[in-house]
């Protein structure tokens, strides 16, 4: 037994096993890497990429300016300035909406917190920029991301969520409300 161990030491047995492993990988060469800019990997269904603001199918913003996403965000990415809809004192909307994506850790808590599903996570991940100020996104940019990532929009149903959706913003291009 001792002789066997000694023999293994002098013929570098462990090293030979390691070298056999690398040689086998060379002979059965099958790369597991992708040539990134040319090939892109298939993302999983629940991929959490860039955040976006969404609209209903008639073009109205879903966001009701409730500030729940701002409260849920662990790294204080989101800043919402909400306001009343002009002439409709029961409805509010996000007058300004900022996201500082330099701090975002893509946890998705804001998306879960949103009562009207106004936030979505897209599958965009190529957001490297030369100037980090370009990552401070305003409402228009976030809506644009949502527009290009969610071509199929949710149908706007009045009173769909009796507590919340009723407060949704109605802009002038909305069909007039029956009274």
């Amino acid at each position, binding site marked *: 037994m001792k002789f066997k161990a000694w023999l293994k030491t002098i013929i570098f047995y462990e*090293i030979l096993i*390691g*070298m056999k*492993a*690398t*040689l086998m*990988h*060379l002979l059965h*060469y*099958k*790369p*597991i*890497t992708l*040539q990134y800019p040319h090939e892109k990997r298939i993302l999983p269904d629940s991929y959490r990429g860039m955040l976006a603001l969404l609209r209903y199918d008639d073009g109205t913003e879903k966001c009701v300016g409730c500030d729940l996403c701002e409260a849920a965000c662990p790294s204080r990415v989101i800043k919402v300035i909400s306001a009343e809809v002009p002439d409709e004192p029961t409805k509010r909307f996000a007058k300004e909406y900022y996201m500082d994506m330099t701090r975002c850790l893509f946890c998705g808590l804001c998306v879960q917190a949103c009562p009207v599903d106004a936030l979505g996570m897209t599958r965009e991940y190529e957001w490297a920029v030369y100037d980090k100020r370009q990552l401070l996104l305003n409402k228009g940019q976030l809506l644009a991301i949502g527009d290009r990532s969610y071509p199929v929009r949710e149908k706007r149903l009045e009173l769909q969520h009796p507590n919340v959706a009723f407060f949704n913003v109605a802009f002038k291009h909305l069909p007039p409300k029956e009274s």
Partner: protein
Amino acid sequence: MVEVGIKIGLSITQIAVVMGVVLLTVMFLTLAERKVIGWMQDRMGPMEVGPYGILQPIADGLKLFFKEDIVPAGANKFLFSLAPILALVPALIGFAVIPFGPNLTVEIFGVQFQPFVISDINIGILYILAFTSIGAYGVILGGWASNSKYSLLGGLRAAAQVISYELNVGLAIVGVILLAGSLSLVKITEAQSGWFWNWFIFAPPFPQLFAFVVYVISSVAETNRMPFDLPEAESELVAGFFTEYSGMRFAFFFLAEYANMILVSCIAATLFLGGWNAPAPFLQFHGSWANLAWASGVFWFTVKVYFFLFLFFWLRATLPRLRYDQLMRFGWKVMLPIALGNILITAIAAYLFPRG
């Protein structure tokens, strides 16, 4: 007078050809190393420049050539410039005595000329050992002259490591010299002609297998390659002795490392694996093709050298770096006794059973 002129012209042509081949091989090796290690690690290696990345060495060379040449403040400017040259020149100069093919003598314009060895001096192997030792000065001076703590540590490590393992290389070679009875690389190779069991790694009366293993391990350590790359350990010392080097000066160190790899591979092939000799007499051009025997000789030499170069890559892809005390203990307490014992036994065997 004319004869001397022709001699000088032939020598210069020969030197140019050998340098060209060596530098082209270095270029090829930089790509081959990245590719082979990539394949061993299930990666692709460089793929962007040219089809399958084959133009990568040219891109690297151009990049290094046009990079800014920075001399750090407080560096000793003279030694800082001298060190890369001291590293590269000994690595390239060793090729002067390597026999790349059969020991032919052809007559060109009435001048005796050996086409496959630049100069067959009778102390060839000592000459190589002497010059590779000078190469260590380049590393040490480069580390010291950079005025950086990482470089200095890398240089110190290189000094200790190269000296320890140079000793083992020298002692491992002694066994072969005892059997061959000559220090000339051409004569050593000629003593191994015939079948592969005449190669000194298997040769009667005493196979130099232990010397071969000691030589290979020590030469890996001497060229500062993985797993003995402590002088440039990138996880500890940034880049070791060439931390502060950039541009062409860095390229010189890089070239020196690869040229040293080729040089030790050539020596290993010449001393232990029979140099240009084919494994079996029928595996070279013979009979009516005998005047083409040099081609098969060069082929077999190339195959053996590339086997060792592949071994370098293979070891690098497989093994982690040794710790410093392990390196020193392995060199002095394991390799040195084996090499000394090998000399003792070989000397006794060579005395009792002299080679015919």
